[in-house]
């Protein structure tokens, strides 16, 4: 059950998107998020939607794979949607007992949930087509200027890539420990909030212990392979812009211009 989370996972395939420089993808994701939140009419929404689906088509990642990532936040989406739907004041268009739906509420609810869904799909498109290492390389390079302000950019990006690598392992481990404790009669489902939290102890303690053990092992393994921080490191695939990336940047700029032109005109 826990294995089905796809958020933050890489999907190996050969596509234009996969071969783009991670910095391009980071930048375009940022642009995508900003434009997504500047959407205030149907035409703009259509532009964002069409662009996103065009890119998904190019990514060669099956659409069902991305939708799966949404499952984990379905509850959150529904709650956010319902709050918007019922609690926004405006002209009442439908009422049932104490529940009223206003026109603004309906509009907000639809906008809000579709924004959230697109946000998740858009960002997971980046993680699905970029290996965690490329992603952290991209971040390290893009944020390299912060090194001058003594921000340990390399260390942070290293930590991130290790965290990403261990997420699936720890998920599997959680599944296993959960089953083992259930076999000893543990109950993770029933009871109130406090009891539930208390019942998590037999799961969390072993999980922490194992995470520390893994961290210890990994630090030895990294040292054994001469890891010594970012100084003097070379890269197997250093980030270098290709003509493909230049074209991508041109597309992004064109997208921004079209989007804001439409926004100003309408």
């Amino acid at each position, binding site marked *: 059950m826990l294995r089905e989370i796809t958020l933050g996972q890489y999907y190996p395939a050969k596509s234009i998107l996969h071969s783009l420089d991670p910095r391009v993808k980071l930048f375009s994701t940022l642009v995508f998020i900003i434009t997504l939140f500047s959407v205030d009419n149907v035409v703009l929404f259509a532009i964002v939607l069409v662009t996103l689906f065009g890119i998904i088509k190019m990514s060669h990642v099956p659409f*069902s794979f991305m939708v799966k990532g949404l499952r984990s936040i379905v509850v959150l989406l529904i709650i956010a949607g319902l709050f918007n739907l019922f609690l926004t004041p405006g002209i009442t268009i439908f009422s049932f007992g104490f529940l009223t739906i206003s026109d603004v509420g309906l509009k907000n609810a639809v906008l809000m949930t579709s924004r959230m869904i697109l946000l998740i799909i858009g960002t997971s498109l980046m993680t699905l087509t970029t290996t965690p290492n490329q992603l952290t390389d991209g971040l390290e390079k893009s944020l390299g200027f912060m090194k001058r302000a003594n921000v340990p950019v390399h260390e942070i990006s290293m930590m991130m890539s290790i965290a990403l690598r261990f997420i699936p392992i720890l998920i599997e481990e959680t599944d296993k420990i959960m089953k083992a404790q259930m076999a*000893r009669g543990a109950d993770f489902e029933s009871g109130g909030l406090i009891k539930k939290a208390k019942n998590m102890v037999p799961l969390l303690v072993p999980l922490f212990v194992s995470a520390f053990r*893994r961290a210890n092992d990994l630090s030895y393994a990294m040292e*054994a*392979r*001469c890891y010594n921080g970012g100084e003097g490191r*070379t*890269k*197997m695939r250093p980030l270098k812009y290709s003509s493909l990336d230049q074209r991508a940047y041109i597309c992004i700029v064109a997208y921004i211009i079209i989007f804001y032109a439409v926004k100003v005109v309408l």
Partner: protein
Amino acid sequence: MSIIRSKDLVHEYIRRDEEGNVESIHTALDHVNLNVEPGQFISILGHNGSGKSTFAKHINALLTPSEGTIWVDEMNTSDDEYTFAVRQTAGMVFQNPDNQIIASVVDEDVAFGPENIGVPTEEILVRVDKSLKMVGMQKYRSHSPNKLSGGQKQRVAIAGVMAMEPKCIILDEPTAMLDPDGRADVLRAVHTLNREKGITVILITHYMEEVVDSDYVFVMEKGKVFMEGTPREIFKDVELLKEHSLDVPQVTLLAHELRKSGLQIPECILTRKELLEALTKLNLRKLAAGQTSVASKPEDKKSFGDNVLILDHASYKYSPGTAYEVTALDDVSLSIKEGEFIGVIGHTGSGKSTLVQHLNGLIKATEGHIYYRGQDIYDKEFDIKDLRTQVGMVFQYPEHQLFETTVFKDVQFGPKNQGLDEKEQIKRAYEALTLVKLPEELYLASPFELSGGQKRRAAIAGVIAMKPAVLILDEPTAGLDPKGRDDILGLIKDMHEKRGDTVILVSHSMEDVANYVDRIIVMDAGHPAFDGTPKEVFAHYKELEKMGLAAPQVTYVMNDLIDAGFDVDATATTVTEARDSILKALN
């Protein structure tokens, strides 16, 4: 010039309390003197805690000596100047395949070492290609390590070391967590590196069969090298090895037993071929005229009680209806009788773990029914939580589930969940801990302070304390050294005999299982391929091999002998049976 040389190497682990005062000193290495020549294949044997892993970390400058010196390629590892040069010269592969892979893609992981030492970009790519090819993993270069098997991950780790172009590679129990297939692949890769590239190999292991092909062996105990020599010299002294509860390959053991019984065969036989030759040379072949058929002795079939568990056409699919659909269990019908001791065998992914997790309702079959004492466990009325206490399940590496502040409290966890009163909980916990023979002074210790073997016992006690009618153990000996393995298996057998419980033992080691169980179920591709007594099952040793499983070594020996015209019992599964049968055939 030797590549590794240690002189009076001492390592002490010092434990300090919060104020920094010395609390205790544990001497892990005690004046170790050792010499390794370039190009050699060296094995270091020893129990857990014998100091062999500590020694390995010294070769890699991960630890520095408390006293004495160790030189790697004439570089003193205590000298900070050489730290990285030492690590480049002597690369290291660790036990746990998951915990040493840093990147999320195979080739990026292999590149990690060269990147760290500043190899130019173009050369990294060449090295990564070459290293992956050496271990036969080039097909997987753009895969995620999470999707690989243990043996494949371990080969990626070896490639990661090779990409740094070391002169020497140290492997710290690289096969302890692998199944037989994975073990064979990793060893093949290491031997190829040694033979073809002239890489010095230091293999730390507790599997004796892995040692047989090495040039020189060091046996360690309590931080000291207590035996050294060629494999032949080491295995000459079977009695001494047994005294130190070290394993001996079954063939060697059988030859030793035969010699003890008065047969004139040479000392120290290491391979099946040698044994066959020796026995043939004896020229005692008794090709009794016409007596070609092998007389297998009638087996005394034990009788058992009623059926406890019945699987009725049970099937299970992972992620049904999606592209990732996997049939883990395929129309399995089985019955398990009261008081049986069953071994479930199969390689990784054969469905053996899935099968046993059905028996206590942790996994619900997608099709079919399961009955516990005649009741359908998927019935709405049926209390599945109660079933979990009736059918106790000890998972693989059960020590990972320990969480309480004391061992005793941890064992009490199960009975407490059963809703028993405190007095009964304590009684159950006490009984269980006595059964697993954990020393009483450890009852109030933190479970995290125990040794590996002790932790495992405590965890097993945690399940026994619920007094299950059926006890399932999933790979209870995984990762233990031979002594720990024999202890645990002995314990299980003892419990089975004393309490008459039904026991189901899941394993991939035929040799482990052959000595203990009444019945073996062989799983292959989600389906029971064979089901019968050990003798019945091992008679299919050729088919078993095709499934990636190996029958006990003696089974092969006996079949070799039959092919050579000896009149021996093909169904012997243990060394004692084999010895008796050979002796009988020869006089």
